[in-house]
């Protein structure tokens, strides 16, 4: 039976993971995601799980690597500076086809940056979440309810494709409270015959490894993985379209920013400018097809982000020069006001 409760985004992240069967969590405190760890530390010992506070983000992500390589659903969470440290293990997990969930509740950067909401880790999440040729699935929820839904999906798809998955949230989403309906996930954890958890004298040893000293062998492993990525790009793109039917200006925004954008789009329409919003739900694979669908309809795209302009590059790639692609953003933890976004839309609508 489902129930409706009021929850913080960070708590919903944790509860969703538990509902999805993830009862092993390896964490390290960092604002603004600490409630995930706090929630897990309270709940997991009561249900036979493990909350373990690591000595560092490096250790936490490598504990995740070990747990996930042994075949269980496990996760870690952090915020921007901590994610930089986690990229080591993420690259190894990608290179040894180990599925796991990593959460980034983004804050301002670079460096220690600030603790206010940001979307400045888009490039890191979608381009290079560690060294080497690889991608991870990146999901960008916009509501506390969607956090829950996407945590379920992230675990399921990570296991289906044997890739790490990331929930890319931000401090605003992590800290806000909204009603959520807690429902059981529709899918169960996948079988993992590849896992290293002891062969029980029933099979040859499993080896979880990312080292291939022969160049051609490594190339072949990477190529095989990229074939999987092509399937993911074909099947897993997700986006929401809001007031796009007759839109002349397509405003593209994800996560918490999309909520501000929707308010601005609505206001723009009241002032006579036909604006609409495309909200990517998956950032990798990027919903290129949804963007491309509108290049013959709209006169321009506007990417609005809490960064100096990162996702805008993916919009440009999808638009491929067909129409202009504009950008508006605030960074460093500054949240754009609907009025600022509206002013930009009105300027383009003139």
């Amino acid at each position, binding site marked *: 039976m489902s129930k409706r409760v009021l929850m913080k985004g960070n708590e919903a992240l944790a509860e969703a993971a538990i509902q999805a069967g993830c009862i092993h969590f390896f964490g390290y405190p960092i604002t603004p995601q600490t409630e995930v760890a706090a929630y897990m530390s309270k709940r997991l010992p009561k249900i036979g799980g493990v909350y373990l506070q690591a*000595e560092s983000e490096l250790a936490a992500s*490598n504990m995740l*690597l070990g747990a996930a*390589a*042994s075949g269980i659903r496990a996760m870690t969470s952090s915020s921007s500076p901590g994610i930089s440290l986690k990229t080591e293990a993420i690259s*190894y997990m990608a290179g040894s086809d180990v599925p796991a969930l990593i959460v980034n509740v983004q804050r301002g950067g670079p460096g220690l940056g600030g603790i206010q909401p940001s979307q400045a880790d888009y490039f890191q999440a979608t381009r290079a979440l560690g060294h080497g040729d690889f991608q991870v699935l990146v999901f960008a929820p916009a509501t506390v309810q969607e956090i829950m839904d996407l945590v379920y999906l992230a675990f399921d798809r990570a296991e289906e494709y044997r890739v790490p998955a990331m929930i890319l949230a931000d401090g605003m989403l992590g800290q806000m409270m909204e009603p959520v309906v807690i429902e059981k996930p529709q899918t169960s954890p996948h079988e993992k015959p590849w896992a290293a958890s*002891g062969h029980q*004298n029933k099979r040859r*040893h499993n080896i979880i*490894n990312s080292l291939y000293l022969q160049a051609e062998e490594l190339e072949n492993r990477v190529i095989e993985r990229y074939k999987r990525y092509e399937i993911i790009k074909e099947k897993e793109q997700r986006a929401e379209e809001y007031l796009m039917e007759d839109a002349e200006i397509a405003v593209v925004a994800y996560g918490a920013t999309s909520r501000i954008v929707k308010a601005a789009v609505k206001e723009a329409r009241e002032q006579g400018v036909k604006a609409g919003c495309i909200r990517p739900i998956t950032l990798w694979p990027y919903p290129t097809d949804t963007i491309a669908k509108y290049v013959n309809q709209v006169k321009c795209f506007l990417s609005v982000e809490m960064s100096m302009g990162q996702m805008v590059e993916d919009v440009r790639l999808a638009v491929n020069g067909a129409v202009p692609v504009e950008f508006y953003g605030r960074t460093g933890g500054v949240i754009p006001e609907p009025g600022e976004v509206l002013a930009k839309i009105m300027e383009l609508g003139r």
Partner: protein
Amino acid sequence: MSVVFEKPKALCDVDTHYCPGCTHGIVHRLVAEAIDELGVEGRTVGIASVGCSVMSYNYFECDMIQAPHGRAPAVATGVKRAHPDNVVFTYQGDGDLAAIGTAETVHSATRGENITVIFINNAIYGMTGGQMAPTTLPGQVTQTTPYGRDVSYSGNPIRVCEMLSTLDGVALAQRVAVDSVPHIKEARKAIVKAFKNQIDKKGFSIVEVLSTCPTNWGLSPVEAMQWLRDNMIPYYPLGVYKDIGGKQ
């Protein structure tokens, strides 16, 4: 015809990439013998570290995971916390365990993580061609201490067993060597104990094995054994630094 000598079952029947005279082979055998003796291969997961021993995942018959440099104890922690009935061991060199992985080593030890750590101390980074390790001896010439390790400049070596023996979570911290038959017998007993401790849920057990690297030391295998006896054992005395025995 009777069989008088054979490979341990937990050791794969393959050629290794180790250099002639390297003592990894001896230590691999001792680990495999311990796994056989305790009958735990089916539930053992080994964690290979970065360094010469990285490809140990090809040499042990149990399930294996290759960890990033220095992180083997964290990876082992993840496996052990997920599967408390597994027997989990790491096999790490000195650069891995005592330099880049110091935090993971110290914290898994102080948590009393119920794992077994096999620590190969050969006073050098072998895989990358013989640079200074945290365990390189004062005065020792390496590729990156071409004038000998000057401790006033490059710092002092780390005595890992001594350091870890101060931590409450440690069940066993013992230093052994594999330069002679008596020492190898001692090493075998220590490694079996380190695995047995885990099965008995006693906590973190580490066996430090003083080992040779003839290739990067620039010595013959026999000379390397003598160099170990003359130089390493005096600086890194063999013995039991901590053993909680029957105590929990």
